[in-house]
């Protein structure tokens, strides 16, 4: 027969209290090396006490207390590594481009869906201009009817840095939704991609139809290539999640989902800073005629080429 419960508690309690204190100090980050060793020793002792409690005092408060204590200590001891700055650098130098290359097929599929949407939207409007009433929002149609760019007005009311940050957060929200809706069996992502494509295609076609093609090109050229690439990449991430749900392969569905989710979110997190950068271009360069159309076009192509060179080359030469 084991020790009676009150005696067990009275004997072991000092160690548990010390461990609790150490854990609190560890969370506050004021632990010295020798205290860290004590923490490790005390954790092992507490784990042994837990095993003892499981056998002899199952279901009592002591058992639950030890469960919780060991759980906290376990969390503190088996923490993920903390070198955040180095890890962030490594993420952008290696992990992000690699994750993208490994899942190129999904990005390709998402590009296909997006292009499909653009073609659909453009075809409808070009073949039957009245279709624009269905596809293009009314306030945009008003602008186009007046042969004005709707983006010209933005700058006159707000300073460009505010416009840029507004655009950045707006675009980030779009890519987050595109990715996150992948959890709805991928259908959400498919819908978002096609929907955005149709929107873009129909507005583009209406502009061309109304003779505003050059103006639209002038606005889109500088930031379009990178921005559309990023939306397509986020779409690829959403499709990965959807695929894990529909066809988990040899793993149980839950595990496949977690595995894919970790991989897919890399694509989204990796895109975020580039989206912020391109929003600066969209806020400062794209509107107005400070830069000529061809300069914007060249800038856009150069940025797009740079972005894709980075995605396809970075981290390739270091061991695969």
């Amino acid at each position, binding site marked *: 027969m084991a020790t009676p419960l009150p005696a067990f508690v009275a004997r072991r309690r000092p160690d548990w209290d010390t461990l609790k204190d150490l854990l609190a100090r560890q969370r506050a980050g004021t632990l010295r090396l020798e205290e860290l060793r004590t923490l490790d020793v005390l954790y092992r002792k507490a784990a042994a006490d837990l095993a003892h409690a499981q056998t002899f005092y199952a279901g009592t408060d002591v058992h639950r207390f030890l469960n919780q204590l060991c759980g906290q200590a376990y969390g503190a001891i*088996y923490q993920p590594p903390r070198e955040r700055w180095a890890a962030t650098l490594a993420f952008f130098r290696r992990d992000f481009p690699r994750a993208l290359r490994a899942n190129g097929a999904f990005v390709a599929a998402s590009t296909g869906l997006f292009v499909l949407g653009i073609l659909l939207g453009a075809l409808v409007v070009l073949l039957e201009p009245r279709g624009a009433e269905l596809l293009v929002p009314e306030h945009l149609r008003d602008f186009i009817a007046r042969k004005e760019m709707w983006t010209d007005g933005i700058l006159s009311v707000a300073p460009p840095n505010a416009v*840029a940050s507004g655009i950045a957060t707006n675009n980030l929200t779009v890519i987050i939704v595109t990715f996150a809706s992948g959890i709805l069996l991928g259908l959400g992502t498919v819908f978002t991609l096609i929907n955005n494509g149709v929107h873009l295609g129909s507005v583009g076609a209406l502009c061309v139809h109304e003779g505003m093609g050059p103006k639209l090109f002038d606005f889109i050229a500088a930031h379009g290539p990178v921005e559309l690439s990023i939306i397509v990449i986020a779409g690829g991430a959403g499709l990965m999640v959807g695929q894990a749900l529909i066809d988990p392969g040899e793993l149980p569905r839950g595990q496949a989902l977690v595995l894919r989710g970790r991989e897919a979110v890399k694509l989204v997190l990796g895109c975020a800073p580039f989206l912020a950068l391109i929003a600066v271009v969209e806020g400062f360069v794209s509107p107005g005629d400070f830069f000529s159309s061809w300069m914007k076009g060249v800038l856009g192509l150069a940025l797009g080429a740079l972005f894709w060179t980075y995605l396809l080359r970075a981290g390739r030469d270091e061991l695969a």
Partner: protein
Amino acid sequence: MDSAASPNLDVATPERVALSLPVAGIGYRCLAYLIDIVLLFLFWVVAYFTFTLLVSDVLGFFEGLSGFTRTLMVVGVFATQWLYWTVCEVVMGGQTPGKRLIGIRVVRVDGSPVGVLESAVRNLVRVVDFLPGLYATGCLSMLLTRQHRRLGDLLAGTLLVREERIDLDKYTAPAAEAPAVSAASSRMRLAPEDVELILAFLTRAPQLEPAARTRLGTKLVDRYGGLGEEERATVLASPQATESFLRTRVQAER
């Protein structure tokens, strides 16, 4: 006392003991969420008044800054909408201020702490869990999954565990007064469940209805006392005496 009703997260540690942590249900999660959005709301009330002060300042002193503050505003909206949860969870070890107050924590399904990737996934999927409004999808998913996980948790491989406040003092608290009956000699030993039962009664006794207090106390004395007729009468004279006797009975188990 028994937590069979709520599910547990079972973890096998490298030390070869099995941890079993209680999972936080939908109520805890809602409370923590409410606290968090109230905090954010208060933050925005303050920010809003500061902002309007800056924009409409009478002296025109801050006018040059207004473009910059607008930028801050936009970035701030984004941060509180999307980044708040992930940043807090990564920095505060799986907790946001609301979760800390309620005493729940995000962990991976194997019990280890969450990293940036998991936290980012579960908080990005928040937008889908919110559909079509008021966390309908998330709540449905929490009700249907065994460990009360929303879609974001399923995708990230995380769940929320509860931290209880457990009072160990009750095991070692000294008896209030000298017991009327010191040590009845022939006594069966108390099993841990019995100790737990008596202690649970002693903890709750002060809040019980007088009748229930006496009735339960009597039952426990009859069951664990092993007393003669006279001793029993002295012990049962008042609730204080009964409880004092029971406490001594537990203490004698050392």
